[in-house]
């Protein structure tokens, strides 16, 4: 069965929502089992005592990329049918920068704050409310204050493969090398600051 | 009809029906019907006219809150009544075809590989008008040519004539029935008519040459034909090198050698005259040049004909006797597509002469006369000074402007702009390569169509026309009928997307061209009301009466009290054509042999699929499901010796080296070994027609050699020869000597059955039973 199944097989919107529930279930399960219910562990990456966030994201990207590359290679997945975020480079950079600051202060990102809040952490609940407020500020202020701030630096290329003309597998290997190099260094820093 | 009980009564019964006796006693209340069914209750019935082909059958659209659900025949139409063919039924899929043209498009890419930009109607019409005025100023109005087909292109033609150009060609003249109508014009002073004016119902014998009725579906014609042959047991003689569907129903099938039909007809004429089986009294009163004819055809003997046509002389004699016996109720079917071998007008004249000497003109069972009445309408006067047919008519005395002339003129830069209106010139005109070369020399090309067919790929501007289910059209007067009538096409649903009806396109264009006196009517409804006022009715009233207005017809001679004067120079049927002799052409048809396919080659013949109007319906979802691609008929014996199997895909190469797309083989004994046959109109080259694109073989590409008919310039197309290419290797056709043949249908043994006795397997008691 050639993926992405929802688009290739033309399933109904209802089926998509059921799939969303299932994927969300395992997403929440994975986040919890990675220990991201504790703000301490999450913020650790910025305060150098626990680089779990860095490692998990990096390994997650590499694992998913490898599977995506493998499946589209043998024709079981139509890579071009996946939905890509439009790339607004400058907006992404500004957004990422501010996100980092907020992350270091609050100790969560939206997904992990939800996970932690559900397991009873008051600060996660506060953070989650904060996220609502942040987005509300944007939504209400958008027409006159922030119009277009999220659409700066648009480039056509949807993936680095298109932008740099580099094959998918090469980028994965580069990421793997970075991981292999940085993980031991990071682990040393962790032990020092524990 | 057994009186079926009414629906309510039926349901009442089944509700009460307790456990009825019988197989298993569950008396279920069957109330739930499958979803999405067009019940009778809230369906609106709107009469209109079909345009899936040009036959114009009357239809009723079943519309439910603005959506067309089903199309059925219009019982009030005297021709097709409640009957409509497969294409008529599938008009819905033409209306709701996702690939149809939706908005005016401007081509910002190259010719042939278009990149479409959506523009507004105003902008499109402004650009067109601008160009037309520019070319008129620079090169004269005649630098604009029009290739059109179908009833919706008539307003545009009138506009162009008013604008000052008569470079207007329709495929129907030079590719289809042009030479048939010229032949009848020369003989009777009037064309053969569309629908053909043949009184089949009363015919005792019918001669059918080269027309495959039944595979070529014109509803009322097929209906009358089968009623005559099967219903009233008229004797049918079919002359066709291929065993067509109608040949299967005929009393005589003559697998004639292609190109020798004229020889056969002249032999019949000669035999009938020699054995004075002809209608002496009719010939004396109504024909001219009988003696010259008698002299001319005297050495066309059956023995000679057997050698030429490969038809047994006994069969030829038997047929001549048959026609002699059954005169004057004999229908010599005029055929329709008749541009075959290059001398086709003479062949059709021979047919007309055969019918005349049998007295089958203006008589029951033969040809009959049309009855026209004058209808007012919004005029768009023709402002053409003098005649300029673009081609030198000295060679072709009876030629009108043909596609070939326009192509030639474009190639030597006399024509700058083409308006292609509802005609797929890549599919219907032979030698499409030459057409494309001509297009590439054009400055500007406009295509008006309902679907993105091949011409739109080369157009600069494409205008989406509303389909026949979304527009009014000029009133149609069906004069060629024993029961003549006038019928109106009206929109069954509102036009979808931004498609517009022809009147809007033409009136908007005429405003921009500053033509004050062309189509002064505001809308098409005014035009129709004006026209209908001349017969004392109007649009609303006519629609209430089912959209058909019938008037008195005078089809036969005795309607004129016996002294009918034919509109020919001599006032009689011209067996000897005075006009032809004036233009030093053979006044009486002669048989001229046609070039045979060289050794190893076979003649390529083409025909219609019962469910397609050539390339127009290939993208129709339902019709496509019925017949997605054409296949190539090939003789069983020839295929065996060439090592070809049924269902295999091969390619064809014609004498000019053009290689075709792959086509599926249909191996059958029902075709002569020296020819192959396929359905025309498949293999669309337009990627925008997603269903039809590259499905089946684009066989028109193989028809590159053409010969112009010496009398009227029609393009003969059945003179191209092909070879088979299988996995890259060319395979020659074997030379199989054909013995003279001709088949007579054996009478069927009459088998009586009693309804009570259970019918045994596949047959009857005294039979040996099943196969």
């Amino acid at each position, binding site marked *: 069965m050639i993926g992405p199944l929802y688009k290739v097989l033309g399933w109904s919107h209802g089926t998509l929502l059921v799939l969303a529930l299932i994927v*969300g279930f395992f997403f929440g399960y994975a986040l919890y089992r990675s220990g991201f219910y504790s703000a301490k562990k999450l913020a650790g990456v910025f305060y150098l005592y626990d680089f779990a966030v860095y490692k998990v994201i990096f390994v997650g*990207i590499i694992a998913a990329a490898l599977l995506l590359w493998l499946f589209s290679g043998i024709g079981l997945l139509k890579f071009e049918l996946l939905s890509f975020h439009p790339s607004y480079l400058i907006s992404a950079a500004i957004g990422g920068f501010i996100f980092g600051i907020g992350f*270091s202060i609050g100790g969560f990102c939206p997904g992990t704050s*939800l996970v932690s809040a559900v397991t009873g952490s008051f600060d996660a609940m506060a953070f989650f409310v904060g996220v609502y407020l942040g987005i509300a500020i944007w939504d209400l202020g958008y027409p006159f204050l922030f119009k277009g701030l999220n659409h700066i630096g648009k480039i056509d290329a949807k993936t680095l493969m298109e932008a740099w003309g580099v094959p998918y597998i090469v980028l994965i290997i580069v990421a793997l090398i970075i991981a292999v190099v940085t993980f031991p260094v990071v682990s040393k820093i962790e032990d020092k600051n524990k | 009809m057994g009186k079926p009980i009414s629906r309510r009564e039926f349901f009442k019964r089944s509700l009460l029906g307790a456990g009825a006796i019988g197989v298993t006693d569950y008396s279920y209340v069957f109330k739930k019907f499958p979803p999405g069914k067009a019940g009778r209750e809230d369906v609106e019935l709107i009469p209109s006219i079909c345009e899936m082909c040009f036959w114009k059958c009357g239809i009723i659209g079943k519309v439910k809150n603005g959506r067309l659900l089903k199309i059925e025949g219009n019982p009030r139409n005297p021709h097709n009544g409640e009957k409509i063919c497969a294409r008529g039924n599938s008009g819905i899929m033409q209306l709701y075809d996702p690939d149809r043209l939706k908005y005016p498009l401007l081509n910002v890419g190259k010719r042939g590989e278009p990149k479409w930009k959506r523009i507004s109607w105003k902008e499109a019409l402004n650009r067109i008008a601008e160009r037309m005025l520019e070319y008129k100023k620079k090169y004269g109005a005649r630098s604009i040519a029009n290739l059109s087909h179908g009833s919706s292109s008539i307003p545009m033609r009138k506009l162009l004539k008013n604008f000052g150009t008569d470079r207007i060609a329709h495929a129907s003249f030079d590719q289809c029935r042009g030479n048939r109508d010229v032949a009848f014009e020369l003989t009777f002073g009037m064309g053969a008519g569309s629908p053909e004016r043949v009184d089949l119902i009363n015919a005792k014998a019918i001669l059918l040459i080269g027309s495959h009725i039944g595979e070529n579906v014109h509803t009322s014609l097929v209906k009358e034909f089968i009623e005559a042959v099967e219903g009233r047991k008229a004797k049918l003689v079919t002359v066709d090198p291929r065993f067509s569907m109608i040949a299967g129903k005929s009393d005589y099938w003559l697998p004639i050698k292609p190109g020798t039909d004229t020889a056969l007809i002249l032999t019949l004429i000669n035999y009938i005259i020699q054995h004075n089986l002809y209608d002496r009294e009719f010939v004396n009163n109504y024909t001219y040049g009988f003696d010259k004819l008698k002299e001319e055809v005297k050495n066309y003997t059956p023995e000679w004909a057997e050698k030429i046509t490969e038809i047994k002389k006994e069969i030829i004699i038997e047929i001549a006797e048959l026609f002699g016996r059954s005169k004057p109720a004999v229908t010599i079917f005029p055929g329709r597509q008749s541009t075959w071998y290059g001398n086709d007008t003479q062949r059709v004249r021979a047919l007309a002469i055969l019918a005349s000497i049998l007295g089958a003109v203006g008589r029951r069972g033969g040809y009959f006369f049309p009855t026209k009445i004058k209808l007012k309408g919004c005029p768009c006067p023709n402002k053409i000074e003098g005649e300029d047919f673009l081609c030198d008519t000295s060679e072709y005395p009876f030629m009108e402007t043909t596609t070939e002339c326009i192509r030639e003129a474009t190639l030597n830069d006399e024509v700058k702009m083409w308006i292609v209106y509802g005609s797929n010139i890549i599919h219907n005109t032979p030698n499409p390569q030459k057409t494309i070369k001509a297009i590439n020399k054009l400055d500007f090309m406009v295509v008006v169509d309902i679907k993105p067919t091949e011409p739109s790929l080369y157009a600069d501007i494409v205008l989406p026309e509303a389909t026949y289910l979304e527009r009014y059209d000029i009133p149609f007067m069906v004069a060629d009928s024993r029961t003549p009538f006038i019928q109106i096409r009206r929109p069954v649903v509102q036009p979808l997307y931004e498609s517009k009806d022809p009147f809007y396109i033409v009136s908007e264009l005429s405003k921009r061209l500053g033509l004050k006196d062309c189509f002064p009517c505001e809308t098409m409804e005014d035009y129709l009301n004006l026209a209908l006022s001349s017969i004392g009715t109007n649009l609303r009233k006519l629609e209430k009466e089912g959209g058909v207005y019938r008037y008195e017809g005078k089809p036969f001679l005795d309607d004129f009290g016996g002294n009918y004067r034919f509109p020919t120079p001599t006032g009689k049927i011209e067996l000897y054509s005075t006009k032809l002799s004036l233009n030093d052409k053979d006044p009486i048809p002669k048989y001229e042999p046609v070039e045979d396919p060289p050794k190893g080659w076979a003649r390529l013949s083409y025909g219609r699929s019962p469910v397609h109007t050539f390339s127009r319906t290939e993208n129709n979802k339902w019709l496509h499901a019925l017949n997605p691609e054409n296949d190539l008929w090939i003789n069983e014996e020839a295929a065996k010796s060439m090592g070809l199997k049924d269902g295999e895909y091969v390619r064809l190469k014609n004498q000019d080296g053009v290689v075709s797309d792959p086509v599926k083989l249909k191996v059958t004994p029902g075709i002569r070994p020296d020819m192959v046959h396929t359905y025309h109109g498949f293999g669309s080259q337009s990627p925008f027609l997603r269903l039809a694109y590259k499905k089946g073989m684009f066989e028109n590409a193989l028809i590159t050699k053409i010969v112009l008919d010496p009398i009227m310039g029609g393009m003969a197309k059945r003179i191209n020869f092909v070879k088979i290419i299988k996995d890259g290797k060319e395979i020659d056709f074997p030379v199989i000597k054909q013995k003279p043949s001709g088949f007579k249908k054996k009478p069927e043994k009459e088998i009586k059955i009693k309804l009570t006795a259970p019918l045994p397997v596949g047959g009857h008691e005294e039979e040996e039973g099943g196969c």
Partner: protein
Amino acid sequence: MRNEILEKYLPLTPEEKEELKKKRIKKHHVATIFLHWFNMLVWLTELITGAALIISSNYIFVPRFFTKLVSDIYGTRGNIIRTHIFVGVVWAIVLILYALFGWRRYLKPTLKEIFGITKDDIGWLVSKFEEVALGKKVHYPPQDSYNGGQKLFAIVVALMVPVIIITGFIMAFHLLTPALIRWAIIIHFIAVGLVVMGLSVHIYMALLYPPEQEGLFGMIHGYISEYFAYHHHYKFWRKKKKGLDKPAELPPKKDLSPIKAGIFLGVVLFFSFYLTGFGLGSSGFVQRTLVAIFGAFAPESVKNHPYMGHYWGVYPLWNFLVFMGFGVIIGTLFAMFLSNHKFRFRIEKGDKISDIQRLIYAVIGGIIVGFATRIAGGCTSSMALSGGSVFSPGGWLFMIFLFVGGYLGAFFFRRLWK
């Protein structure tokens, strides 16, 4: 093999027997009781409607007057099949919930016991057969909380019920291909047939067979006399006496190592792409729920709001990311439950700041993060993770600047977490 089992019994004096008869011990949990009787009702309706559905001459297996009777009760046979499907779906949902939530406390131990067939069970069956069929006097080996016959029937039910549900769903909702549906019918019939075979013995034993009388009441209020337990379920009685049957408190699981967690997350992300073509995301959940809330107050202005407008769609909550959010919530609960962690209200903070300060900083952090997701168009899971795996330029840029901002922020707000 048969006679040596007798010695196992602890000999009892008649007085002890009388005394045991008076005392009662608990046999079945409330949930098990509820489930048993719920099953009984389901099987009753499903058997009646099911049998009445199948009436074609090739398939019918009940007398025709019965099918006629049921058809008349239900009016149209359409109602029969609708009832059958409805009850089947409810049954499936209840069973699945029971299996998921009751896995550790109820289902796992029961299954372990049912499938744990010992020589005693076989011995019991053999002797039962000899007693009933051959009329011999026999002594039964000691049995656990379920005797041999009950275990056999339970195994058949445990195996056949999932088969019945799956084939039932295939038939009711015409899943996959007609060929599969054809086989599903046959398998459905056989599975039900096997269970029905056991059922008649089960009912006879419970209702009519005097010695098992107490067992029936055991399934009604959950208690049986100690003597009955001693006599019929000796091993269960002995365990009960020694208090062995309490499920031990399982130790809580440790978090996965980052590598394993990363791979798990990567696989989940891959399947999200493979199944739906969309990546993971959570800020979308917040955005759309917010739009829904605003929409509740002023639907018109939200619908054609320049930014919020295109989040409206058919209805903002009827969306992929929103349902993913719900999935995350359920998944987290399950993860917590299955890794034996307890739900505890807590505040995690550095030592230097008070709880109130921590909450205020959390809100401020939330606002900044919320605002940032709108600029970038996503959060860590959608931009960094999903975007990163397909190497979207925006994704990687977002991640890099995230760490830059993060370390900058960490420098200033170190004291929050020290």
